[in-house]
């Protein structure tokens, strides 16, 4: 835990830090997104942007981090760091943070990040805000304003960490934008020896299993075609699947349809299902119940097809067609297929 006196000397804390998550020795998309946002924050505050990277054989990734905006990279490269393990990562990173005293430290809100960040924050004794969709600087107060959804997305909260440092946040993937890659950028790359104390490793990884891509992966999908009660019957779900096929999209579903047993719950989008942020979400016969919208409202472009003009879904959609989906979808599928063949 930090000493009491540290809390008063907020001025000692400078720089924006980003945790660079890697998988199989390659940077994950969220790391680059965080750098994009981090750059903006660092420029506002007139400080450095530092990336901290743990992994095995990640030397080439260090330069990548610089190309994507980092002024400095702290790299800890060791075979024992190849696969994420809570205790090792928390130990190393906490030590670095306590030594270097960043004022802001952001981590991607991935499975890894949400396992790691709270452990670090608690160890340091600082505040952590989860799953942020917005980060801004209040220049007057020199505070990081962290914006995040709560209550299933029905509330947007702005949160600050006034008296402790670093201000930590996990950031929702695919919300922030990475900078364009600029190989001309120059930055400082520091390699730190890992100094792992085996005694502190409390959890041992026995086996890692990758599951085949044929399992439904709504969270990573670029395009999702989703069906709701308006589809009317399980046999009629074909029109949704056919459109999804031609778009190489994933199939999603509302809770009603999953509860009715028309499609497995792995396809459910919504508060108790999956939260998705595709580039394109096509909602067919979905009325837009609050808990469904909570799961997909962050989609970049939303198309709604519903024969009820008052359906709530139209309030969050970019494009809407008020018509029977059983008429629209087959035609849409046909037109898209045609236009793809033309190319």
């Amino acid at each position, binding site marked *: 835990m930090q000493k009491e006196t540290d809390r008063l000397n907020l001025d000692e804390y400078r720089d924006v830090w980003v945790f660079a998550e890697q998988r199989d020795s390659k940077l994950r998309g969220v790391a680059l997104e965080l750098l994009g946002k981090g750059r903006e924050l660092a420029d506002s505050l007139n400080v450095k942007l530092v990336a901290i990277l743990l992994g095995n054989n990640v030397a080439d990734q260090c330069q990548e981090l610089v190309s994507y905006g980092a002024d400095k990279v702290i790299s800890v490269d060791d075979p024992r760091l190849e696969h994420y393990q809570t205790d090792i990562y928390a130990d190393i990173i906490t030590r670095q943070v306590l030594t270097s005293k960043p004022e802001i430290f952001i981590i991607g809100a991935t499975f890894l990040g949400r*396992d790691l960040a709270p452990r670090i924050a608690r160890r340091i004794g600082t505040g952590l805000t989860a799953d942020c969709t917005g980060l801004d600087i209040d220049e007057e107060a020199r505070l990081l304003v962290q914006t995040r959804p709560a209550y299933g997305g029905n509330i947007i909260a702005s949160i600050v960490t006034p008296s402790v440092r670093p201000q930590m946040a996990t950031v929702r993937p695919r919300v922030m934008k990475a900078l364009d890659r600029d190989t001309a950028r120059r930055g400082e790359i520091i390699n730190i020896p890992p100094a792992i104390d085996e005694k502190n490793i409390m959890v041992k990884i026995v086996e890692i299993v990758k599951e085949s891509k044929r399992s439904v992966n709504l969270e990573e999908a670029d395009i999702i075609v989703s069906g709701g009660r308006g589809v009317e019957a399980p046999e009629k779900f074909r029109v949704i699947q056919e459109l999804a096929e031609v778009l190489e999209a994933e199939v999603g579903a509302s809770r009603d349809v999953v509860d009715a047993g028309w499609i497995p719950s792995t396809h459910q989008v919504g508060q108790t299902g999956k939260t998705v942020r595709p580039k394109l979400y096509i909602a067919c016969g979905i009325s837009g119940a609050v808990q469904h919208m909570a799961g997909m*409202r962050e989609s970049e472009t939303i198309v709604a097809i519903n024969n009820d003009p008052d359906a709530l879904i139209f*309030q969050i959609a970019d494009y809407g067609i008020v018509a029977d989906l059983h008429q629209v979808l087959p035609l849409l599928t046909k037109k898209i297929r045609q236009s793809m063949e033309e190319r």
Partner: protein
Amino acid sequence: MKVVVCIKQVPDTGEVRIDPETGNLIREGVPSIVNPDDKHAVEEAVVLKEKYGGKVTVITMGPRQADAALRECLAMGADEAILLSDKAFSGADTSATSYTLGSAIKKLGEFDLILCGRQALDGNTAQVGPQLAEFLKVPQVTYARKIEITGGGLKVERALEDGYEIVETRLPALVTATKDLNIPRIPPMDAIMDAYGQKEIITWTASDIDVDRDKIGIKGSPTRIRKASTPVLKKGQIEIIDGTVEEAVDTLVVRLKGKQLI
């Protein structure tokens, strides 16, 4: 086996509606439930007890009405329920919450396993579990899909984004439960009667547990909510595409192509 389960009573956000006129959340009449992920944690604890013997203690930090949530857990098979209720606890962020829960758990004495739900329906942070593990200095295993007690301790299958991993750790440990872990039982009728009739909820205030008043509640929360509002529904205007079905489809295709989505 002594298992402690941390639960939270939350509004059933699945039942929440937005007032169409004001755009605000309608909170009245929204029933309170045991947080779904926490129910999976309770179920797992009871299953472990049934298999290995021992005791399940459920604990929550909340207002008086969290009593109903604790009773439901008792009806599912928990042996003991503790309500941490005090004005001094209110306004806590995850840091202060994990401190409070952790301090109460320390008072309970030795335990083998702490189970928490992965995240709560209202806060959605998924932070209390790991922070509690750190406070108590025990190993954490998050996103558990399957739990097994072994000679050496615990073996857990935990979900990854693109698969899963199997990990081992010694006890005591903390595990966060996901909905893939089990199907929570429906509390049987007699257990419900006993939860209200026989069993007692133990209530602790801040004075009952050994806490530093500066570390609980709003005082002990490093993060502060500056503002909360209902989101403006989406950016920009919706374009309702008119015309016959044929025409509308054509227009939509043009729009989507323009955005390089197809």
